[in-house]
């Protein structure tokens, strides 16, 4: 829509109506912004910030079988931090998060690059993007269990391998293993990489890449010195999303590891079901601090806010 057609559009508004609201136009711009973001701020404060503060407080409370009592004791935290399982579970989650982040970053970057710079028709690009996005709109639970008949002992993948005479026996490690957990995460979360990275890439002026080429840069040099630095925001945002999704998961690990791996949140959810709120809250607090440090570290690399909000 051009400025001209906007102007024509405005002329269709009767001039009598045009004048009515004129005195209102002089609201202070800062105030207008404040009014516009106020509902968001209110909801986030009441439903996110306050509840978070609440469980931070509860983590210091005392409890027994019948209820919880206000107190200030560090036992919940101390107990958690001195149990060897805590460290083991955190390391295991971190391992999953790091591996999944590496794989989704590789896939997400290459696919975004392909879609943004190699696909010539805008319509085809939109269609291919959608093909990537549609599975994301199906329930994560169903996408997780979809792997079970695929990877199982008599599953589609084993049948295919044996049908092609690549293997003679069904592979056992495919399902209910770390392998299955990682595959499922990659399946669930690659789109979280593709979205932000493609958004960053599509803002790159192609003239910059031509300039690099004209100055004698090789493909690889253009990639390393032009494209990757300019897509840092997308990479950081995508990494944050993937990392935190993996750290906060409890369903995939439970379903796909066959009980061999634990996740941070599954321990927490057991405690909540047993109504042991203070230790659950302590667990939650440590996870929040851990995630906050990780995210802050990734945010340091790039000013996500400056890049997103001009």
């Amino acid at each position, binding site marked *: 829509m051009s400025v001209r057609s906007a102007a024509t559009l405005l002329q269709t508004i009767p001039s009598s109506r045009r004048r009515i609201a004129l005195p209102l136009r002089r609201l202070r711009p800062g105030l207008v912004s404040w009014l516009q*973001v106020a*509902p968001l701020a209110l909801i986030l404060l009441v439903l996110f910030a306050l509840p978070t503060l609440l469980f931070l407080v509860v983590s210091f409370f005392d409890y027994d079988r019948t209820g919880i009592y206000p107190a200030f004791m560090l036992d919940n935290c101390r107990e958690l931090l001195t149990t060897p399982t805590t460290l083991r579970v955190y390391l295991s989650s971190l391992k999953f998060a790091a591996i999944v982040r590496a794989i989704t970053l590789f896939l997400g970057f290459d696919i975004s690059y392909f879609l943004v710079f190699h696909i010539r028709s805008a319509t085809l690009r939109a269609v291919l993007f959608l093909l990537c996005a549609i599975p994301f*709109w*199906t329930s994560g639970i169903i996408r997780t269990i979809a792997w079970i008949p695929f990877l199982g002992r*008599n599953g589609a993948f084993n049948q295919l391998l044996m049908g092609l005479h690549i293997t003679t026996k069904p592979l056992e490690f495919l399902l209910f293993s770390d392998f299955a957990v990682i595959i499922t995460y990659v399946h669930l979360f690659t789109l979280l990489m593709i979205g932000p990275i493609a958004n960053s890439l599509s803002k790159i002026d192609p003239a910059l890449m031509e300039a690099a080429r004209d100055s004698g840069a090789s493909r690889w040099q253009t*990639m390393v010195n032009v494209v990757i630095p300019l897509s840092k925001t997308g990479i950081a945002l995508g990494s944050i999303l993937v990392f935190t999704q993996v750290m906060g998961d409890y369903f995939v690990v439970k379903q796909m590891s066959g009980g061999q791996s634990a996740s941070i949140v599954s321990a927490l959810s057991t405690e909540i079901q047993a109504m042991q709120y203070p230790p659950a809250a302590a667990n939650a607090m440590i996870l929040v601090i851990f995630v906050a440090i990780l995210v802050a570290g990734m945010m340091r690399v790039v000013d996500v806010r400056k890049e997103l*909000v001009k």
Partner: protein
Amino acid sequence: MSGRATKGDKRPWTFYALAGLFGLFLLFLYGPMVVIYVLSFQGPDGGVTFPMVGTSVGWFRNILEPGQMANIPVSFSRSLELALLVSGITVVISVAAGLGFRRRFPGSGVLFYLAIASLVMPSLLVGFGIGLGFQFLGLQTNLFTSALGAQLTWTLPFGLLVMFAVVDRFNRSWEEAANDLGASAWQRLVHVTLPILLPGILGVAVGAFTLSYDEYARTTLTIGTKNTLPLEIYALISSSSSPTLFAIGTVTTAVSFLLIGATLLVIFRMQRRRNPIRSV
């Protein structure tokens, strides 16, 4: 790598390598899904894995009958109502906030990071906090209070991020033109800004709808006594395994496809009407 390719350029080898990778990725993305679509037509004596023992639509019929473990039709309509409500609220609030964020205002940094924190917070913890809050206040958790709130802490930051991308491509000179022609702030919003942003706004609506419709980690501790569809599915998984689950998956995907298809059609027609010459 020659910038955005134009017609007639010779394709570099990287094009073929990346195209191959993309094809494999699509296979990876859809392969397991296709398996469950096929298995949802499993015969009455068949199980959750291959081989197929005949074919039937019995598992689809199963969805419609309230079972012992799960009542799919009722939870489905609950999920639908909640998702519509969440989607509506998310659109209004995140569009307003997206417009508000175009200026720097005192506290804009804090609010931005609050939204990011709300997005990356492990989902179960959000539900845990809200559930605790309700307990302290002596309130009963309920679908349309605590669960609605818990889902908004997830859909609103998402809507906001989408709005950033949408607003970023918005040319402010259109608004200035409206000002110069004497439009009031309200007329400018209704006749210029919102119509131009409409495709992005539809994206927020559909995105928020599906995020809510599929949500379980934030909802599970805030839902009270009446489950939504994902929670019923969750209960089904832990109790039994039958191809009914796959039938639900097939139906959900079909509904998603219809919804996305309809939205695309609307966006496509909108753009065609606006830009009759340049449209493809």
